[in-house]
């Protein structure tokens, strides 16, 4: 059963890791995709074409830097100009900086908030207005388990991801009466290239803190997003769903 036939989803940071798994899972469930990446990539574009053909959906690649709001708006205007709509928004794009709190510069802190929070705020502002016109929508923000639990060496990253959670809960309250649901996913240790930027010893230690004693897969985050976007989750909003293998 395809859960999202005919729906249009906008996925940021869809070229790799969790973002690519999201693109795959949403295509497999029948959704057409606006697949965002920061810069043009012919290999990725070919992969998107294969994915679209395999699943009988349409995928439109779109490129802009998440911190370039003029470019962001231009991309959204072209969606609007084509009379397309966005039923589902997944704010996935993000960057991770690892540094001890006392070694985190002002610039590093600002970059974390710029990419991981401010850009989400602005993109959601634009896309929720498209959703408002249809009186329906689902917004899924990818946060992190470190936003809830904290993490040594990730004060800036975890603070920005915590902002995403607070933001999601607030806009869930504002947009609920427009039948727009807003939820967060807080992934734990997911096996992506981002993960491998962390020290190995620390990774092993954290892996052993999960009840399942393993890393999560990008596809396991993606399947949660498919559920949240679908009618199966029609009465779920303002929630944070941990996908962390029972991290303690």
């Amino acid at each position, binding site marked *: 059963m395809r859960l999202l036939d005919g729906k249009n989803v906008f996925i940021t940071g869809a070229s790799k890791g969790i973002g690519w798994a999201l693109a795959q899972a949403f295509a497999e469930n029948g959704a057409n995709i606006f697949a965002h990446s920061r810069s043009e990539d012919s290999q990725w574009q070919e992969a998107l074409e294969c994915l679209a053909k395999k699943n009988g959906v349409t995928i439109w690649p779109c490129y802009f830097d998440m911190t370039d709001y003029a470019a962001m708006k231009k991309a959204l205007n072209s969606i609007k*100009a084509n009379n397309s709509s966005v039923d589902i928004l997944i704010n996935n794009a993000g960057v991770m900086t690892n540094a001890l709190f006392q070694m985190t510069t002002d610039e590093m802190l600002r970059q974390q908030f710029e990419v991981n929070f401010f850009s989400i705020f602005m993109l959601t502002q634009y896309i929720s*207005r498209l959703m408002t*016109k249809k009186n329906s929508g689902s917004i899924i923000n990818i946060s992190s388990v470190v936003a809830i639990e904290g993490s040594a060496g990730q004060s800036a990253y975890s603070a920005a991801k915590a902002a995403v959670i607070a933001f999601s809960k607030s806009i869930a309250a504002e947009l609920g009466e427009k039948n727009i649901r807003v939820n967060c996913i807080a992934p734990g240790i997911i096996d992506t290239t981002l993960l491998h930027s962390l020290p190995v010893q620390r990774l092993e230690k954290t892996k052993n803190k999960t009840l399942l004693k393993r890393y999560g897969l990008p596809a396991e985050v993606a399947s949660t997003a498919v559920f949240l976007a679908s009618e199966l989750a029609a009465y779920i909003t303002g929630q944070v769903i941990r996908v962390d293998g029972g991290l303690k």
Partner: protein
Amino acid sequence: MESIALYNKAFLDIFMLAEKDLVTLKYHDVPEWDSVGHMMLITAIEEAFDIMFDTEDIIGFSSWAKGKLILAKYDVVL
């Protein structure tokens, strides 16, 4: 429909006013033009003219007259 008629229609439909009341109308002049009504108005105008306002312009849209000036920035001639 002429542009000015489209513009007025957004106000008339959302705030249930008479056309004669529009020229001097400002934000909060009527209970319906609160923050929720404002976003409904913005959405209706965006839809009518197929544009997307910048956030600064949504905030600056403080009256019927100011709205006309803002729309000019988006090449909408009223």
